[in-house]
């Protein structure tokens, strides 16, 4: 399948730092590619090189719209750009403009190149996001500002979506709406590059993930593969207590220890770290009477370290 977005050996070097160091990745139509990395890993640099804001020091980037070869590969070509939606990581818009005035500007530019988009699409998206477009940007909360950015990125049913930290500042309900919108775009064949530093978000939405660390792509694989080796931190409350030592012999269990929590009726709470599947652990715990399981978020650092170690091995 032809990639909608591709980088080959992309290097972006500044005077004192290499922000992207030989990054090669491909996002295919109908795929969500999660670009993971902590702040400063080079995610935004890679994105900005792909979208023509920055010139690569070496290597190449390519954007292609499937079925429209006449649009070429020049990402600054407005006709091609009509098919690309972009949400910057640090969204800034003219503070005195209302959401309606801002969206009208973007709609007009798209219409000037014949893109099938209008106020109806704006209203439909605003309704999905529960966004009031009559208010000035400066008066909007951080979450509502982000909604304006998401709306602009989704205008005109783009074939390629590039979203830099799209759920930043959004409440959980709206985060779900945004992830649903992304899934809908994927379902109609759009290619989506989504940068995030939240592993759970990548797990929830991405088909493939790339992990950036200090400008280098240390991992590029299916999200299911990544999660199969990622560590899970579980806090399990049991009716009766097993011996810690017994649990450490269970395949996948890295550590297990008791947690001082307010227990009732003699229940015991354990903190357990598992690498990969937790199936064997649950099989072992069932006889002890599982009362409650809480899963703590896996820190992205752990995935990075695992990826780096794996790459070095």
């Amino acid at each position, binding site marked *: 399948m032809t990639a909608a977005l591709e980088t080959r050996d992309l290097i972006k070097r500044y005077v004192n730092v290499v922000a992207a160091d030989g990054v090669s990745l491909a996002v295919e139509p109908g795929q969500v590619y999660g670009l993971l990395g902590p702040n400063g890993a080079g995610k935004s640099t890679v994105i900005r090189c792909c979208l023509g804001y920055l010139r690569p020091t070496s290597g190449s980037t390519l954007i292609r719209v499937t079925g429209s070869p006449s649009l070429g590969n020049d990402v600054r070509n407005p006709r091609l750009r009509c098919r690309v939606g972009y949400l910057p990581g640090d969204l800034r818009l003219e503070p005195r403009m209302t959401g309606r005035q801002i969206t009208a500007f973007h709609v007009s530019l798209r219409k*000037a*190149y014949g893109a099938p988009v209008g106020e109806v699409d704006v209203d439909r998206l605003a309704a999905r996001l529960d966004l009031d477009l009559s208010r000035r940007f400066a008066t909007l909360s951080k979450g509502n500002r982000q909604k304006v950015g998401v709306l602009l990125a989704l205008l005109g049913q783009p074939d390629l979506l590039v979203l830099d930290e799209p759920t930043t500042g959004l409440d959980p309900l709206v985060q779900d709406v945004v992830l649903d919108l992304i899934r809908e775009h994927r379902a109609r064949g759009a290619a989506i590059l989504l940068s995030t530093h939240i592993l759970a978000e990548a797990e929830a939405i991405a088909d493939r993930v790339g992990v950036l660390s200090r400008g280098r792509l240390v991992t590029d694989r299916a999200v299911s593969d990544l999660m199969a080796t990622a560590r899970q931190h579980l806090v399990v409350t049991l009716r009766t207590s097993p011996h810690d030592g017994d649990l450490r012999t269970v395949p996948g269990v890295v550590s297990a220890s008791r947690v001082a929590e307010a227990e009732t009726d003699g229940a015991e709470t354990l903190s357990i770290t598992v690498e990969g599947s937790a199936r064997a652990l649950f099989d072992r715990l069932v006889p002890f009477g599982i009362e409650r399981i809480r899963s703590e978020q896996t820190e992205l650092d752990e995935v990075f370290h695992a990826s780096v170690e794996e790459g070095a091995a």
Partner: protein
Amino acid sequence: MSALIVLRQMLLERWRSILAWTVSIAVLMLVMLVFYPSIRDSGADFDAWIQSLPESARQTFGLAEASMTSPIGYLISQVYSNIYPLVVIIMTFSLAGWAIAGCEADGTLETTLSAPLRRWVLAVARFIGIALAGLAVIAISTGVLALSAPFFDLDVGLPGWGFWAAGLTMWGLVMVYTAVVFAVGAATGHRTWALAAGSALAVIGFLGQVFASLAEPLEFLQTISPWYWFLGNDPLTQSPGWVSLALPVTLALVVAGAGVVVFERRDLAV
């Protein structure tokens, strides 16, 4: 089409500021006219005091050629040699600093360029917007001058189109330095550098035409100073010509164009 959309959006975003400047400058021009009768009535005493000033001071304040108590002398020395172009330059500088470099620094440029819009179209449209804003502010304040002048006997000896000719050539002067601010901002992304470059060149140009009239070896400065292209042509009585209008406008276009070319090719500081 895209350029028109950018222009319309620029007007939407900036109209409050442009309107405030327009009203302020028009009121300032009216105030300048109000002072004229009292200075004229001082008559010979005032001119004698002017003549007692050092030559350099008279040149600096545009008092060398004509009597300050005559309508043309007053308008040239008190309005067109300094305060009028200065306030218009401040307004157009603020727009030129905002157009690319300011938007790049505040982060709005990245989102604007996420729309289907070529960089050069955005830059050219905004430069046209600045030029039109400058022209509109000058036109309105010139209208105030032209309509009010008869009430203060400031129209004596002036052709009917005198104020309009002076306004048009002053626009040429303003656009030269505004283009420098715009171009440096577009080429570097640094608003401070842009404003510093434009301001420095405007001051150097102004002082250059003053020094040129004080010392013969410095006369060449007149030929390269846009201030002399404007003031040396008797702007209130001579119709705009190649040197007073075509030359500064052409120079402004070349400078702004150079900025757009670099802007099209460089990394954005986003």
